[in-house]
């Protein structure tokens, strides 16, 4: 990828890196908390954008991975494992397993059937955790503290936690961008553009799509682990279908396919929701029509509108 097409992403991450310093002029703790949460959901949206934009796999159950990551932290801490990296590894492993098992069924379907299949699995996981009273069931589970990093409780500082989340987001972005440009990324993208052509070249869609599900799920699970730390509380609502829908909305808002667009979409959506909630408690009355307008008039999302040349699928 040329440097020119990476400019928006660089600007975006630079802005995000500077945000905590700007936040000093306002209610810092509140803004840092909000910021960290936004980065975490942006990470989940980023992984979904990879799935949708590169793989044409519209998942309406992506929030399940947020839940998997979050509950991995819960279960790990119950077993005495408090290090974030170890917890993240467990989260990734669980996500990979879930992606493999559900992908085996879901990927047999296409179009709307696929979308509904992902929804079904998301719901199954949701109900499973609702029924687990040992983990708090519907009411959720409160963590005693944030995880440790390299042995020390470094994450208690909001400042440090924000930068951890930003580091995770930046790392995921770089990783996904490179994957898009790799041999694997080409095949995945080709399957999206013209599945018949891809098969005629000798590529079977299933392995590539499954791998994409695994990658996206793993990243979203890491986001889930961070989310558990951010709120120090985990509930099945993390993986409700409404949350999955919101992730899709953030991705679509930002413009599917550009990857950085998903980050932008998440930021705009959450910032808007937060800003509106300060003015009125009727936020959805305003956000709803906004989404409708964007859907009708914004063909390529925010990324497409702001930086058309940099928003094509990373080839």
């Amino acid at each position, binding site marked *: 990828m040329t440097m020119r097409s990476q400019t928006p992403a660089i600007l975006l991450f630079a802005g995000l890196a500077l945000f905590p310093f700007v936040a000093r002029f306002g209610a810092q703790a509140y803004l840092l908390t909000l910021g960290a949460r936004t980065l975490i959901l942006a990470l989940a949206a980023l992984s979904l954008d990879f799935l949708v934009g590169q793989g044409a796999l519209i998942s309406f159950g992506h929030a399940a991975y947020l839940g998997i990551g979050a509950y991995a932290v819960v279960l790990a801490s119950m077993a005495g494992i408090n290090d974030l990296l170890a917890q993240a590894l467990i989260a990734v492993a669980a996500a990979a397993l879930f992606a493999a098992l559900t992908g085996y069924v879901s990927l047999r379907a296409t179009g709307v059937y696929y979308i509904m299949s992902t929804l079904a699995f998301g719901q199954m996981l949701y109900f499973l955790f609702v029924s687990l009273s040992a983990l708090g069931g519907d009411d959720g589970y409160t963590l005693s503290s944030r995880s440790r990093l390299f042995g020390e409780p470094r994450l208690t500082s909001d400042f440090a936690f924000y930068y951890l989340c930003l580091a995770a987001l930046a790392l995921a972005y770089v990783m996904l961008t490179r994957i898009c*440009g790799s*041999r694997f990324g080409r*095949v995945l993208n080709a399957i999206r*553009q*013209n599945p018949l052509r891809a098969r*005629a070249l000798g*590529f079977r869609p299933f392995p590539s799509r499954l791998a994409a599900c695994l990658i996206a799920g793993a990243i979203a699970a890491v986001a889930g682990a961070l989310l558990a730390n951010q709120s120090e509380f985990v509930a099945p609502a993390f993986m409700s279908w409404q949350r999955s829908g919101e992730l899709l909305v953030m991705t679509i808002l930002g413009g599917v396919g550009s990857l950085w667009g998903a980050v932008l979409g998440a930021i705009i959506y959450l910032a808007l929701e937060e800003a509106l909630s300060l003015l009125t408690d009727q936020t959805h009355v305003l956000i709803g029509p906004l989404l409708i307008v964007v859907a009708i008039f914004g063909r390529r999302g925010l990324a497409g509108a702001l930086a058309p040349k940099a928003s094509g699928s990373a080839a």
Partner: protein
Amino acid sequence: MSPPLLHIEGLAKSFGALAVTDDVSFSVGEGRLVALIGPNGAGKTTLIDQLSGAVQSDAGRIRFAGLDISGLDMSARARLGLVRSFQIAAVLPEYSALENVALAVQARSGSSFRFFGSAAREEELNAPARAALKRVGLLARADDPAGELSHGEKRSLEIAIALALRPRLMLFDEPFAGLGSEETRAGVELIRALKSEFTMLLVEHDMDAVFALADEIGVLVNGRLIAWGAPEAIRANERVRSAYLGEETLA
């Protein structure tokens, strides 16, 4: 006499009550160029679909390079070297011409499960891709998105992709459809030059092209193969003439 590269027996496909192909049997020897002709609706495209694996046959067997491939899907057949080109050029519109061909090169060289190296920078992929584009005269358009190419250019790109795949048997589905006479002439020359590289099965309507290229011709009418032989024999065949010309008496 070496066994034929492609051997088909009793191939049949029906859609509902309509038998589109019916008990089709023939062989294609290695290095030969065989053309399939017939009136519209004769079942030629369906036959290509059955051979390439796009459509599951109702009956019959297909042997390719000694293997029974009847149960294999399209991608498996492509990996074995049985490749088709599409009547409506199926290129990857968002990728450049070079990237399209490079992907075909990638399909035949090494693992596609590499996640981090930049495919755009792999000379192992780009060099053969450029060579293929050059052969079909598309090198100048290498970096243009394939979706923006003209109809004739897309056809050439299809052939470049075919070249890059280095197939053993190439199935061409009406490669000259929709081309002007100049483009057709160029296409015929290109395919003639390829005759030494791989075996080909051509479905075509353009009789001049067919007679210029084919070593053998099969005639499909209403899903059945009514004639097979060298071009001159087919040209003189009474049944073929009446199938094409209807009930006109032959003077």
